[in-house]
């Protein structure tokens, strides 16, 4: 049984020794394959298997160094592959910034949502008609369940010899009339039956005819039939009056307006500033309910909610309250968050022909920016890297001060990403692009970001951005940074300072008279302060130099500063 090659032969450097049993050894000893016991030798022979048994393979492996080496290397390869796969997954999860469980949760939610979007919506008892109703027939206020219960109750009380089945009546109107009559008879009979047996007649009747009302929605739906059975009134009416009343009541039953509203209507109500805050909040709440997983056409409702939310601003207190409450709700609403993330991830690249952004996409970007969620922030950055046309949308969305925290970091990160991709630069122009008009709290956060950053370009961006502050909140930090030993940051601070309003800069005029304050003088001259005219005249600048002073880039600012430094020296 020795059909193995003699593995003791010296292999050539180019060709390793080959053993016909290596594959069988690997299959059995590495992959745990047991099929060798049952295989057809003729079929396997061309594939590298010889006829072997378990014992012979064991003994062969002990002797054959080729198989030992192959087994050893294959084991190492398998281990390496497994390690690499594990590392890849761990790296990916770490990059995203959440655990694998959280990531999986998101995927599953997203998959469930996308998958259910393609399933036709089932008829359910949601409070909103999820799609515009095409049925022009008015909905019968008495529902099937009501009729069933009335019939059942009547049968229990043995009213009438033979009550027809509900299905027997083809005409709904006639059925309603019949139900009304029946209800009237029920009340009359029960009133008679309970007369004198209870102290509070109405209460006992009401208890008898509770019709198993369980919750608010059920109550509302069944009230059309049950309302006519109000004991305090019905006890004094004749059956015919009760019948008339029941039909009348059933026909004129007013249902809440929102029951008939489709998501578009609700969205319009949320946006309508002429409506009161409670009405807008109620519409928003209904819209939010319709966005949950499992709700029919949740995607449509979510889109409408996003459109409504994107158009909310912070113009008045009502808007602010509504906006803040809705954003709070969305932060805990997984279906909306997932939808936002999906929309951001499916944003087309800018170079695509059809890359014009739709209203829906814009709304998703605006809302995602304002929500302030780590997941969404990452998605926004990814989307921005794919399509830098949304940079303006992001900056604009954050100018509405509805985001609770993290807006400064998001702005800085977006700017950083754009610099990394070569779309933008670390200049005052882009600082203005991102930070001009932002909420005042952002500038305090910029100071913190500057202090904790270990990246020189980021510190420069912070300093430039501080120049967009509308008040003197960043003034002291910029002044302090002008004395920084890092020349680039000192220039950036001066450059940022020059962008502050004149009324803020006026308080620096006394300091500018100091001998070493040439950088401050350069900044004030660049800002166009009237008091700086005398220094400029003393420099006798030509037109190109004047242009450089007024509009030159930050990279040329050291040159401008040197003029003022040298002027001081000549004056001395």
């Amino acid at each position: 049984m020795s059909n193995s090659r003699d593995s003791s032969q010296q292999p050539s450097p180019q060709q390793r020794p080959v053993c016909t049993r290596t594959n069988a050894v690997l299959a059995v000893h590495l992959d745990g394959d047991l099929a060798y016991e049952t295989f057809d030798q003729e079929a396997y022979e061309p594939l590298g298997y010889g006829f072997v048994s378990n014992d012979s393979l064991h003994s062969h492996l002990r002797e054959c160094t080729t198989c030992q080496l192959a087994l050893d290397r294959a084991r190492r390869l398998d281990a390496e592959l497994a390690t690499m796969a594990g590392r890849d997954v761990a790296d990916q999860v770490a990059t995203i910034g959440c655990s694998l469980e959280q990531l999986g949760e998101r995927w599953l939610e997203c998959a469930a949502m996308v998958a259910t979007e393609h399933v036709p919506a089932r008829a359910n008892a949601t409070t909103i008609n999820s799609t515009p109703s095409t049925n022009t027939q008015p909905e019968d206020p008495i529902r099937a369940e009501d009729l069933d219960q009335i019939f059942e109750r009547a049968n229990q009380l043995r009213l009438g010899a033979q009550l027809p089945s509900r299905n027997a009546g083809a005409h709904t109107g006639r059925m309603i009339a019949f139900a009304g009559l029946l209800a009237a008879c029920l009340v009359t009979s029960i009133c008679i039956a309970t007369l004198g047996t209870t102290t509070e007649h109405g209460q006992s009747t009401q208890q008898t005819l509770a019709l198993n009302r369980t919750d608010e929605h059920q109550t509302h739906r069944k009230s059309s039939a049950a309302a006519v059975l109000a004991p305090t009134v019905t006890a004094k009416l004749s059956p015919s009056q009760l019948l008339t009343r029941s039909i009348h009541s059933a026909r004129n039953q007013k249902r809440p307006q929102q029951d008939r509203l489709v998501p578009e209507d609700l969205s319009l109500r949320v946006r309508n500033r002429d409506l009161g805050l409670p009405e807008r909040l109620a519409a928003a709440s209904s819209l939010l309910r319709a966005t949950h997983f499992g709700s029919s056409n949740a995607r449509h409702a979510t889109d409408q909610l996003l459109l409504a939310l994107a158009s909310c601003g912070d113009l008045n207190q009502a808007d602010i309250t509504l906006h803040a409450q809705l954003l709070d709700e969305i932060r805990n609403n997984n279906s909306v968050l997932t939808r936002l993330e999906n929309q951001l991830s499916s944003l087309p690249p800018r170079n695509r022909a059809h890359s014009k952004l739709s209203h829906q996409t814009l709304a998703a970007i605006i809302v995602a920016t304002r929500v302030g969620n780590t997941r969404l922030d990452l998605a926004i950055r990814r989307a921005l890297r794919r399509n830098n046309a949304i940079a303006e949308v992001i900056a604009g969305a954050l100018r509405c001060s509805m985001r609770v925290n993290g807006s400064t970091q998001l702005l800085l990160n977006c700017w950083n990403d754009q610099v990394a991709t070569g779309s933008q630069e670390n200049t005052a122009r882009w600082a203005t692009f991102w930070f001009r008009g932002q909420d005042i709290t952002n500038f305090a956060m910029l100071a913190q970001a500057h202090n904790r950053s270990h990246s020189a370009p980021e510190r420069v961006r912070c300093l430039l951005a501080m120049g967009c502050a509308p008040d003197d909140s960043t003034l002291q930090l910029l002044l302090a940074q002008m004395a920084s030993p890092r020349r680039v940051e000192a220039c950036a601070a001066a450059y940022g300072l020059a962008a502050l309003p004149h009324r803020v800069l006026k308080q620096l005029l006394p300091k500018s008279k100091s001998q070493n304050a040439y950088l401050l003088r350069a900044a004030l001259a660049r800002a166009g302060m009237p008091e700086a005219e005398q220094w400029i005249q003393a420099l006798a600048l030509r037109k190109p130099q004047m242009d450089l002073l007024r509009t030159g880039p930050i990279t040329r600012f050291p040159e401008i500063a040197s003029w003022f430094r040298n002027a001081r020296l000549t004056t001395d």
Partner: protein
Amino acid sequence: MKRTMDTSLGKQPRPTAVTHQERAWLARCRQGDQAACQSLLRPHLSGLLALARRYCRDPHWAEDLVQETLIRAFKGLHNFRAESSVRTWLFRILVRLAYEPARWQRSMPATSIGDIDIPDNYGGNRAEQDAIARELKDRIDEAMERLTHRQRTALHLRAVEGMDYATISGVLNCSTTAARMHVLEARRKVLARLKEHIDS
């Protein structure tokens, strides 16, 4: 000399059946229980992601591939006949999708310098080890990419997921013998390309 005949040779394999627990979850899924669907699919996510990473270098594409697999799985749960295990079924979906990228790739990958996350811990004493590990990884990746789609999948499923040949054949929709040969051939080719790197 012929021993017992392997009836599966050259035919469709007999895949592993679903477990009792999976059967219970499946029943609940078919009644519309989303939580049961999630319980059914959640244990296989890391495996799916690992295989997706084997196909796609771009992590976003890998995520897209897994997401698309899950979406198909959710849509197809009602038609799943439970003739193979859920794991086999999920991997089969992913493998088929990976074979036809046009069916799930939404756009060209937008890899830019900003997409590349550089870990902070590069350097120091680990730098040399990391460099060696990265070189070996690159070589293995290169060797794996030279394999056929089936060979690459078979070797990954065997080495990383620890699947037996019957399960691999279920994923690849081939015979057990073919699955075995895919694994062995893939291993032989990769080792041939790695040469002495794997020994060191």
